[in-house]
C-alpha cells in the first residue's frame, strides 16, 4: 500500500512557507547596500523591471513544476526527462553547501542574542588592558563593536592559512541552531507548516516596531534623504541592472529545489500562479521596507558619530586655547577655527593635526553589506539607543526568525528528494533521515567555527551558489520549454489547475528569461576572469582594520571544487543515464509479456 504524500494543511501554509523561505537575511542586509550603491531611489526602477521580467516567471515555473510532478527536485526532473535528473542532483548539492554555511549565521545570531541580556551590552564597552589604565589596543584602534565581532565572537586569525582550533562558544551555538532546525523539520510538513506561521509573520512585527522606533530617532531623516534621493545617472550604469537582476534571482531562492519541494506538497488544483505573484511581490516589498528601517538606523548612527566627532573637536580646542566652556558650539565652530588660526597661528598649527574633519556625508557613505552590516553597524546603532537591551533582543530575534525560515526551505530541498527515494525511505523513517542530514551538516559546519572560519564562510557565501544556480535555472527553463515541451506543460497545467496559461508567461519562459540568465552568466564569468586572482578581506589586529589579501592556492582549489561539484552533476548524471540505458538495451528484456 503506497503512503499518500503529505500535504500542507491549508494553501496559506504553503504561501507562508514560500514567504518565510524567500524573505531571508539577504532582504535585510544586501538590498539596502545595493540601493545605496546604485543610486538610491532610482535603483527601484531596474529592481521592479527585473522582478516582473525575471523573478515572477521563474518563480511560477518552479512552483508549477513542483506541483505538477509532485516530487522533490531529483524526481521532478527525472520525470521531465531521465537524462535531466542531474539538475535535481545539482540542486541538492548546492542546497547542501548552503545549509552547511547558512546555519552558522543563525549560530552567530544566537550568540549575540544571549549576550544581549547584560547591562551594559558587551559590545558597547571595550575591555580594559592589563594595568587597567586604558582599553585593549585592538579595541582602541577599531571600535568596540568591531572588536566584539572580530575578537570575541569569531576570534579571527590574521589570514586564511592559520586555521586555529574550533572555538567552543560558536560551536555550542551552532549545535543549538541545528537542534532548533531539526525540531522544526522533524515531522515534515506537519511541523514545518505550523512553524512557518511564526517565521513568516513575526519578522514583520519586529520590522514594524523598528520602523516606528527608527523613524523617531534623532537624525533618521538624514539617512532616509540620503538613500532615497534618486541619482538618475546610475540608470545608465549596466552594473545597476545586473545587480538588480542578480538580487531578484538570489533573493527568491530559485534553483535550490526548495520551491519545487514546497510545491510538491500542494494539492494539484492549487492556483500556483496567484501564489507566485503574491510571494514575489511580498518579497520585494519586504526588501524595500527593510531598507527604510536600515536607512533610518544608518542616519541615526551617522548623525550620532558626526556629533561625537564635533564634540571631540570642541573639547580639544577648548582645552588647548583655554576658552570658556560653552563658547564653542557646532554652529560657530568654523568661524572660531578661522579666528584662532589667524590670532594664534603657531599654537593652532600644533593642534591642527589632531582636529578631525567631521563630515556627515562620509559617515553616511560607509556602505556595508552582509555580516558586517548585521553584526557591526546595527549593533553600533543599537548600543546608542535607550533601553538598548530590548532593541538588541528584538533585532537578533528577528534575524533568527528570518534565518530559520530560510533554513526550513534549504533543508526541505535536501530532504524531499531523500524521502521520495524508495530505497532510503524503506530503511529509515523520515525523522532519522532528517536527523542524519542535520548531524552531517553540523559536523561540517564546525569548520566555520574555527579561527579562520569566517574566511571560509565568505568563500562559501560568494562562490558556492552563484554560478551553479544560474546554470541550473537556465537548464531548468530550457528543459521545460524545449525538452518537455511548452505546449505539453501548458496542457498539463490547464488540466491540473483549470486556468489557461497566459501568453506573458509563455513569452517569458520561452525567450526573455533564458536570455537574461545567459547574459548574467556571461557577465559573472567574465568578471571572474578579468579580475584575475581572487582576493579577500582579512582582519589585521595590529591595525584594527580589514586588509586585502590574495587567496592561497588551496583556497582557490576549494572554490573551484565547490563550483565544479554542483555543475558537473548535470552532464555526469546525463552521461551515466545514457550509459546504463545503452547497457540495458544490450541485454534482452527479462520482463515477461503479460
Amino acid at each position: 500500500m503506497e503512503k499518500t504524500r503529505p500535504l500542507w494543511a491549508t494553501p496559506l501554509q504553503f504561501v507562508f512557507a514560500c514567504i518565510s523561505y524567500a524573505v531571508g537575511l539577504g532582504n535585510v542586509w544586501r538590498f539596502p547596500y545595493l540601493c545605496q550603491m546604485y543610486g538610491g531611489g532610482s535603483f527601484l526602477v531596474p529592481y521592479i523591471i527585473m522582478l516582473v521580467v525575471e523573478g515572477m516567471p521563474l518563480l511560477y515555473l518552479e512552483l508549477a513544476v513542483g506541483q505538477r510532478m509532485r516530487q522533490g527536485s531529483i524526481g521532478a526532473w527525472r520525470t521531465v526527462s531521465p537524462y535531466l535528473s542531474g539538475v535535481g542532483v545539482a540542486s541538492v548539492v548546492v542546497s547542501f553547501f548552503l545549509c552547511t554555511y547558512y546555519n552558522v549565521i543563525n549560530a552567530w545570531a544566537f550568540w549575540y542574542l544571549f549576550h544581549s541580556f547584560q547591562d551594559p551590552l558587551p559590545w558597547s564597552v571595550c575591555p580594559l588592558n592589563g594595568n587597567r589604565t586604558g582599553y585593549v589596543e585592538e579595541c582602541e584602534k577599531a571600535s568596540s563593536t568591531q572588536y566584539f565581532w572580530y575578537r570575541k565572537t569569531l576570534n579571527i586569525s590574521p589570514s586564511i592559512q592559520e586555521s586555529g582550533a574550533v572555538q567552543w562558544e560558536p560551536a555550542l551555538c551552532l549545535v543549538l541552531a541545528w537542534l532548533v532546525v531539526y525540531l522544526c523539520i522533524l515531522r515534515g510538513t506537519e511541523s514545518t507548516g505550523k512553524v512557518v506561521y511564526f517565521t513568516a509573520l513575526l519578522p514583520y512585527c519586529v520590522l514594524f516596531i523598528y520602523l516606528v522606533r527608527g523613524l523617531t530617532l534623532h537624525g533618521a531623516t538624514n539617512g532616509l534623504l540620503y538613500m532615497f534621493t534618486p541619482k538618475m545617472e546610475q540608470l545608465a550604469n549596466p552594473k545597476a541592472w545586473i545587480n538588480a537582476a542578480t538580487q531578484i534571482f538570489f533573493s527568491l531562492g530559485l534553483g535550490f529545489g526548495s520551491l519545487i519541494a514546497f510545491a510538491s506538497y500542494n494539492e494539484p488544483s492549487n492556483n500556483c500562479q496567484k501564489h507566485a505573484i503574491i510571494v514575489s511581490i511580498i518579497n520585494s516589498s519586504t526588501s524595500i521596507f527593510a531598507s527604510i528601517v536600515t536607512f533610518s538606523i544608518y542616519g541615526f548612527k551617522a548623525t550620532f558619530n558626526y556629533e561625537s566627532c564635533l564634540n571631540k573637536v570642541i573639547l580639544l580646542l577648548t582645552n588647548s586655547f583655554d576658552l570658556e566652556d560653552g563658547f564653542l558650539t557646532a554652529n560657530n565652530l568654523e568661524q572660531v577655527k578661522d579666528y584662532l588660526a589667524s590670532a594664534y597661528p603657531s599654537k593652532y598649527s600644533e593642534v591642527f593635526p589632531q582636529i578631525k574633519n567631521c563630515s556627515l556625508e562620509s559617515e553616511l557613505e560607509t556602505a556595508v553589506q552582509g555580516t558586517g552590516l548585521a553584526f557591526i553597524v546595527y549593533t553600533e546603532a543599537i548600543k546608542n539607543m535607550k533601553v538598548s537591551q530590548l532593541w538588541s533582543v528584538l533585532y537578533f530575534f528577528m534575524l533568527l526568525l528570518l534565518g530559520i525560515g530560510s533554513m526550513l526551505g534549504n533543508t526541505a530541498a535536501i530532504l524531499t528528494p531523500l524521502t521520495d527515494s524508495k530505497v532510503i525511505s524503506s530503511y529509515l523513517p523520515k525523522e532519522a533521515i532528517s536527523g542524519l542530514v542535520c548531524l552531517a551538516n553540523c559536523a561540517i559546519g564546525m569548520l566555520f567555527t574555527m579561527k579562520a572560519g569566517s574566511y571560509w564562510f565568505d568563500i562559501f557565501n560568494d562562490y558556492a551558489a552563484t554560478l551553479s544556480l544560474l546554470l541550473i535555472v537556465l537548464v531548468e527553463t530550457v528543459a521545460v520549454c524545449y525538452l518537455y515541451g511548452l505546449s505539453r506543460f501548458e496542457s498539463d497545467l490547464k488540466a491540473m489547475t483549470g486556468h489557461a496559461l497566459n501568453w506573458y508567461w509563455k513569452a517569458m519562459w520561452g525567450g526573455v528569461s533564458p536570455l537574461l540568465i545567459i547574459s548574467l552568466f556571461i557577465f559573472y564569468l567574465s568578471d571572474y576572469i578579468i579580475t584575475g586572482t581572487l582576493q579577500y578581506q582579512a582582519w589585521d589586529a595590529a591595525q584594527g582594520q580589514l586588509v586585502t589579501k590574495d587567496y592561497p592556492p588551496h583556497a582557490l582549489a576549494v572554490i573551484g571544487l565547490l563550483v565544479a561539484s554542483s555543475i558537473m552533476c548535470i552532464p555526469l548524471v546525463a552521461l551515466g543515464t545514457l550509459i546504463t540505458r545503452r547497457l540495458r538495451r544490450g541485454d534482452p528484456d527479462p520482463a515477461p509479456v503479460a
Partner: protein
Amino acid sequence: MVAFSMRKVPNRETTEISHVLLCNVTQRVSFWFVVTDPSRNHTLPAVEVQSAIRMNRNRINNAFFLNDQTLEFLRIPSTLAPPTDPSVPIWIIIFGVIFCIVLVATMLLILSGIQQHRRKHKGPSEMEDTEDKCENVITIENGIPCDPLDMKGGHINDAFVTEDERLTPL
C-alpha cells in the same frame, strides 16, 4: 591633598604642605605643581608623584566632589573600573535554558512519532488477519474465484435498518 598623598608614600612621611609649590595658575582653575624634598631641596621626580596621586585619586576626587572626567591630572592615567564579571557568564545560563527546552521538545516529538508508528503497525496487522479469513471463504468455480461481494470489507449501510427490529415483536 597633594601633601597628604605624598605622606602615604614610604620614606616620604614627612612631607608638609609647604613642600608643595604651585606655579602657572590660570583663571580656568588649572595649575602646575611640584613637590620638593624637604631635606635636599630639589623637586621629586614626576613618576613618584604620579604614582602617589594615582593611589589616592579617589580621595582627591571626593574632596572636591569631582570625578576623573572633571578633575584631570595631565599625564596621570586614571585607573578604569573593570566591568563586573559574574562568576558564570550570563550567556551560558540563557544558552543552557534554551538548549534544554529545545532538547526536551525534540525528544517529545520523536517519542510521540515512535508511538504513532507502533500504533500504525499494530493496526494493519489486525486488518491482515481478517482479510486472511475472508480469503478462506472465497468460493472458487472453475478455478476462477467468485467475487465475494458481501464478505470483502462490506460497509453496513445504517440507513437500511433490518426489518425485524422495526416491527414490535409479537
